[in-house]
């Protein structure tokens, strides 16, 4: 990685970094002196054990993502980190956060202005009855075991890696939009600049370097968790093994997501 790249990376990560520091997540590492010269990813501490040494095309890991609905505070940091990481064009979303408000007449009010990018700083004022419950639900690619997007892509531009990532090859994509129609979770969009399909990748490029996805990295309340299910010490492994209330989105679609929700409510689609 040359110097310009490093600067760019630091630029991109700065906000994430500061957020983490503020939230205390890596406050302890603030004083760590980063040795100059080594590639950025080498200088940051490894966040996914065993990734740095693994140079095989596909790792033997089985990645899973867990979103803790009960923890999310709707700050939108993840959305900001994502937009910065990928330069996502306005009006399109690789990830977003939804706000659910349920009143005491069981009316369910959902919104996600600008995908939650600006954070939910003001309460909704249009709820007719007293609010009985409210929560936030972050959304991203479900990295389906049986991805409809991969099934329908006519040229194989959308494909699945052996370690469970569904990715888009921008050099092959013809921009037909079929995958956008097929994804039950609407996580895909057609990038108006590249004219190809795009979606959340769980930050494959970071993961390959042993770093957590950008959104996971910045979440101040640790509502987004990522790890390897083959690693019995990983948090995601433990959560999925223990008797929690866990669900996936639209299980009836048969896509078998690798994205799990802790404390998911039945109101969530």
């Amino acid at each position, binding site marked *: 990685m040359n110097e310009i790249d490093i600067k760019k990376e630091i630029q991109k990560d700065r906000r994430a970094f500061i957020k983490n520091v503020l939230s205390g997540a890596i406050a302890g590492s603030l004083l760590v002196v980063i040795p100059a010269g080594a590639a950025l990813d080498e200088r940051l501490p490894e966040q996914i054990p065993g990734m740095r040494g693994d140079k095989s095309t596909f790792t033997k890991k089985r990645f899973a993502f867990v979103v803790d609905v009960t923890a999310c505070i709707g700050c939108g940091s993840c959305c900001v980190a994502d937009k910065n990481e990928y330069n996502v064009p306005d009006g399109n979303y690789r990830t977003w956060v939804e706000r659910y408000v349920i009143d005491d007449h069981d009316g369910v009010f959902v919104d996600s202005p600008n995908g939650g990018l600006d954070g939910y700083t003001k309460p909704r004022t249009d709820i007719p009855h007293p609010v009985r419950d409210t929560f936030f639900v972050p959304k991203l690619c479900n990295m389906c075991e049986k991805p409809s997007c991969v099934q329908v892509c006519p040229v194989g531009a959308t494909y699945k890696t052996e370690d469970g990532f569904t990715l888009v090859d921008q050099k092959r994509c013809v921009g037909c939009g079929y995958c956008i129609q097929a994804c039950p979770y609407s996580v895909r969009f057609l990038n108006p600049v590249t004219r190809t399909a795009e979606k959340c990748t769980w930050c494959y490029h970071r993961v390959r370097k042993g770093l957590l996805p950008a959104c996971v990295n910045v979440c101040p309340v640790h509502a987004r968790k990522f790890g390897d299910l083959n690693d019995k010490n990983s948090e995601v492994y433990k959560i999925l093994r223990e008797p929690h209330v866990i669900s996936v989105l639209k299980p009836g679609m*048969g896509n078998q997501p690798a994205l799990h929700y802790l404390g998911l409510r039945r109101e969530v689609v």
Partner: protein
Amino acid sequence: MNAAAHGETLAAVSNYVFPNDLHVHWSLMIVLYPYITGLVAGAFIVSSLYHVFHIKSLKPVARFSLLFALAFLICATWPLLNHLGHPERAMSMMLTPNPTSAMAGFGYIYSAYFIVLLLEILFIFRPVVVELGKTATGFKKRLYGILSIGSDNVSVKALKLDHKIIAFLAAIGIPMACVLHGYVGFIFGGIKANPLWATPLMPLIFLLSACVSGIAGIIFSYILIMKVSGRKIDVDCVQTLIQFLWGFFILDFVFEMLELFSHFYMATHHWHTLEALYSGPLFNTFWVYQVGIFSVIPFFLLMIMSLIRFKDSLLLFFAPIVSVMILLQVLLMRWNVVVGGQLMSKSERGATTFHPMWFEKEGLLPAIIIMIAPVVILWFIGKVLPFWMDKDSAEAA
């Protein structure tokens, strides 16, 4: 706690659309694509009714329908290419297709069908072409030389062989036309994520509406061209076409309604969304226009025209009107399926809106150009291959 007591907490109080669902990605071009392929398949069926099923009264339009089908088939890929973000990569669909993709098959089905249609046209027109080649000069002479597939043998024996080949091509052409259009229906019907599309009836409805639009297209253009060129219209032929149109339209309309009724009757949680769609954003284009005006009226008109033998002038007055109505019905149906399906968000809680613009890449103007193109192409084809058999060439054939 009424709703919650029944697990019914999905009440769509707020119109919530997933942020990425605000865009309608498949717009006018994808409305036109099944419309054009439908016209092709339908016109081919008309020609086969004569060539395979020997409905003699359709003889006047049997050749014309093939040329009509060819003109539209030539343009069938245009809306697709205009729609693609990277049309320069379109060939990878055929060179490196993904076998699990419903879309990847289109190139193959399209090409195969193109070849069959072209061959059938060449064989049918061979005697005419040989005849025309005799009197033509210069470029036209060479063109006719090519079109006669290198043989100017029009002996009785040679023509008999031709007829066998034609019958064979027309026969395999029917299942291929059905596959072509049933398959287009499957491109939508196979998308489980979209409750409006995901029904096994989709290929059938697409196919039936294709037949309907093709027949209507032939009736309209036949009467129009004859009127404009001052030739005599074969009333028997029009009457027969009207009867077939009615027959196919009964099936088409009934299945369209049955599909909706099944959704309503089964009332799965998808019905929530569909109901909101049909009573909201699609109310006008579906209930008022597609069903109310352009299905019910033509349905009864066709019924009366089929059961009662109208005076010739009356028949020739109503036939083009009813045909245009049917053509619009099918166009509306394509719109309601393609665009309508994308209006409901996969959030199951709301709908987005869509208004086509005039001058976008996939806007109204390009759509109109693409719909006019086949007509222009047909006109050029008509300069080379005569639509109708005049006395002389009929005798020669």
